[in-house]
């Protein structure tokens, strides 16, 4: 499996994603330059975290017009797997690859560990988990309040497109467990075709004992499980 990780100007988690794939999964990864037009044969594309274009105007709004996004969109259209993490999730929403929008947190920037519950395991970024599994990993963002109109939210719920939800220690999606005011405690969603997945938490920062949690590993292992299936 080859994972292409896009480096936008202002990305800052591309190396972390690279280490997750190469050091912890033992798979091949390549950093893709945003001005290029070539995915270099990547099976999976990761849009990493960071502050692309400084997050000026709106997070992800400018990056989504980067030249390489044409190829990323074509890859997604062909059914190729795209994972957006944090800023990458924001970019994917802005690009229309994912539904909804990520607005300013209701309580400012938050950097802290959270617990998320895996709602569905039929995506390439959740396949190795079991449904209802709770995973601990950090969030670090200012714009993570997932927002869509009620009809869209109902449709997402109905179609099983809400993949990750913030929950408390007991696994319940309570208000107290909601770190940013996101609607229905949504932490991650996928598109209708289920090949594009976005999430605000950072699994690449929960890969080894030194991180204090290895729960991110199962999400990356999902890529491998899907590729081999």
């Amino acid at each position, binding site marked *: 499996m080859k994972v292409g990780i896009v480096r936008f100007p202002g990305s800052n988690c591309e190396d972390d994603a690279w280490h*997750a794939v190469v050091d912890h999964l033992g798979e091949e990864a390549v950093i893709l330059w945003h001005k290029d037009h070539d995915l270099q044969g990547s099976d999976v594309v990761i849009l990493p975290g960071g502050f692309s274009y400084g997050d000026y105007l709106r997070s992800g709004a400018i990056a989504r017009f980067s030249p390489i996004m044409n190829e990323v969109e074509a890859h997604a259209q062909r059914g190729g797997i795209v994972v957006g993490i944090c800023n990458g999730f924001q970019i994917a929403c802005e690009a229309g690859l994912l539904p909804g929008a990520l607005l300013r947190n209701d309580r400012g920037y938050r*950097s802290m560990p959270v617990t998320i519950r895996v709602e569905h395991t039929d995506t390439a970024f959740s396949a190795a988990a079991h449904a209802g599994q709770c995973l601990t990993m950090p969030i670090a963002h200012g714009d993570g309040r997932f927002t869509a109109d009620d009809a869209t939210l109902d449709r997402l719920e109905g179609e099983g497109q809400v993949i990750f939800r913030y929950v408390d220690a007991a696994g319940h999606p309570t208000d107290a467990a909601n770190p940013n005011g996101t609607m229905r405690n949504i932490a991650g969603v996928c598109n209708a075709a289920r090949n594009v997945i976005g999430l605000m938490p950072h699994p690449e920062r929960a890969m080894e004992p030194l991180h204090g949690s290895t729960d991110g590993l199962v999400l990356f292992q999902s890529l491998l499980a899907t590729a081999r299936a």
Partner: protein
Amino acid sequence: MTATPRLGDPVITPALVAEHGLTPDEYQRLERMLERTPTFTELGIISALWSEHCSYKHSRPVLKTLPTQAPWVLQGPGENAGVISIGDGMAVAFKIESHNHPSAVEPYQGAATGVGGILRDVFTMGARPIAMLNSLRFGSLDTPRVRYLVGGVVKGIGDYGNCMGVPTVAGDVMFDAAYEGNPLVNAMCVGVMREDELIRAKAEGVGNLIMAVGARTGRDGIHGASFASEDLSHESDAKRPRVQVGDPFTEKLLLEATLELIASGHCVAIQDMGAAGLTSSSAEMAERGEVGVEIDTLKVPVREAGMTPYEILLSESQERMLVVAHKGRDAEVRAILQKWDLTAAVIGEVIAEPVYRVKEGDHVVAEFPGTRLVTDCPFYYPEAAESPAIVALRERDVHAVAERAEESDPAWTLARLLSAPTIASKRWISQQYDSTVRANTVFGPGGADAAVVRVRGTKKALAMKTDCNGRYVYLDPRVGGRIAVAEAARNVACTGARPLAVTNCLNFGNPKRPEIFFQFKEAVGGMGDACRALDTPVTGGNVSLYNESPIGAVYPTPTIGMVGLIEDATKAVGSAYQSEGDSIVLLGTPTNELGASEYLSWIHGVVAGAPPACDLAGERAVIDTLCELADTRLLRSAHDCSEGGLAVALAESAIGNREQPRGIAVDLATWGSLPLRALLFGEAQGRVVVSTANAEAVLAVAKTHGVPARVIGQVTAASAGFTITGGARALHADVSTLSMSFHDALPAAMRRAPADAITTDPAAGVTA
């Protein structure tokens, strides 16, 4: 060639000279140097270079007394950042810097640009920044203005560091009325590189090209360096246009471009354009290389039309670098910058003639003979005399301070101390900082006594912490200076790391006042004593004088930034108790000292008494003990006793991790004869609370180092409560009560703030 005035330049008058902050003597020295009247441009240049901020004219002789050498020091003071070796060909660059005055005027931008500046200092050495720290001092949170400053400073630090993708992992914050009108905002950056990537800011090679790189030059912050060298007065408000705006996005591009540029070998030297911008960066690079330089201001990429040489030279626009490139390689340099959407322009060259020359096209607007423009400034040895009022405070018998009625229950006192903003959890602050980006953070804010950050590609980790108790330094500068170093080293050692070296930020008042200069001299002396005793040389730092407001000078605050090394990252030790049944061992000895304590200040409003004694040999032995204990994996947790003393340290290890609290059952009967409040809340130095599954072994190791050690109790379940017996009165508290005091204090205080939100986030447009 000789410089001549530009059309429209103001005439040089004594009033203009005074406005530029030069004394009549300094002005005469300038005239003697030039053998003529300076041009307006020259006056501006010298006013910046001879400002305290750039020239260190009051501090340099004292700084010379600090130890700066050790086999592992690759670069000591004098460069953009200090550099030490950590073995295996790897090196660490680190530095701390103040942005106090800009932050007092505009907290968000002031703090943000402070972070930007210190990051540039580190990556211009060729190091990739891997961690940021911040040391903050504010007045009382009861004042709305202070809450506004806290909100803005924290958001400014967070937004800049977060955008850069450099984790902010540690720091220290204290609140005291002494900082009311003049907060301190010190930012520290730590970077990692291979030893062979080290590059210095030394202009070399006649014919080499001087290039301006990064953001364009605008009219921002003109004369920031001299601004930093004045007292804060109400008139400072009128100086607001001097405030600079940071652009962390451009800085992130500049970081990547600079590291790529250094790796490319196309350049000889790089320096960031910080205070006094182009002027000081070019003059300092020329001085280090002992070469002449010639610059043409018309070639500098500007943001606004019609900028004069004076403005271009003194602008403090952010996110700019000065690069000396090999002759003929400017196209290659430009290509690298272009890849990152940044500009680069040749603006001059290194010349054989020993002069500093500035032209505007063909017109020479400034020309100084020699290459030592910065150190040719006058140096001062001001008078030093201790203030008798402070002597009286120190000599006061603080044991005579009457107890408050509520103190009959020591649990009340403990809970109250845990809610003192200086002691309380700083999570409200650190949650606004990305502390985990780069995926190397082993212990971030609040997890251990110092932050621990793994060095990718090795088994090693770095430990780092800032510290300084300004109240100690105020009451006894020599002892306070020693303690600042000793506490920082102890914090680093609590994680299991060997302290290696120090950067420092000397925040003091007006050095022309004898009682201030006394503080400065003595505190630096104390720092030097401790650095020598602990074998942690000083590799750099920053001096910030004139930290005064209408209510007086701040506490003398020589902030220490300490860096240490753990050979095996998996051996790092946190500060929270891990398991019920573990033994709690106290290293070091309680005393009857109570002076200068947070207890006296917060419970009684008394700032008096002598700070605790600092036994440097004892500190060193404790550090050695901690390193050995961690290395042999004997420790479950380690936390030093600092503000609030033993009782607070015991409590912090129990409740520091809010999600997994523990109780304790501790008996202090051994020291039952000490006054209870000294035993519980006194701040005797050299003490560490550790927990262990193997107390015998811990005691044995301590003994080999000659460190007093004693088992004082056990870790229990949180539900069993928090109990300390053996003193004059027993202390029983609910763990949840203590936890609430500690964790809710800062959020509750800040909730009283009028939301500063909307005024402070230009980048995102709107905030909450």
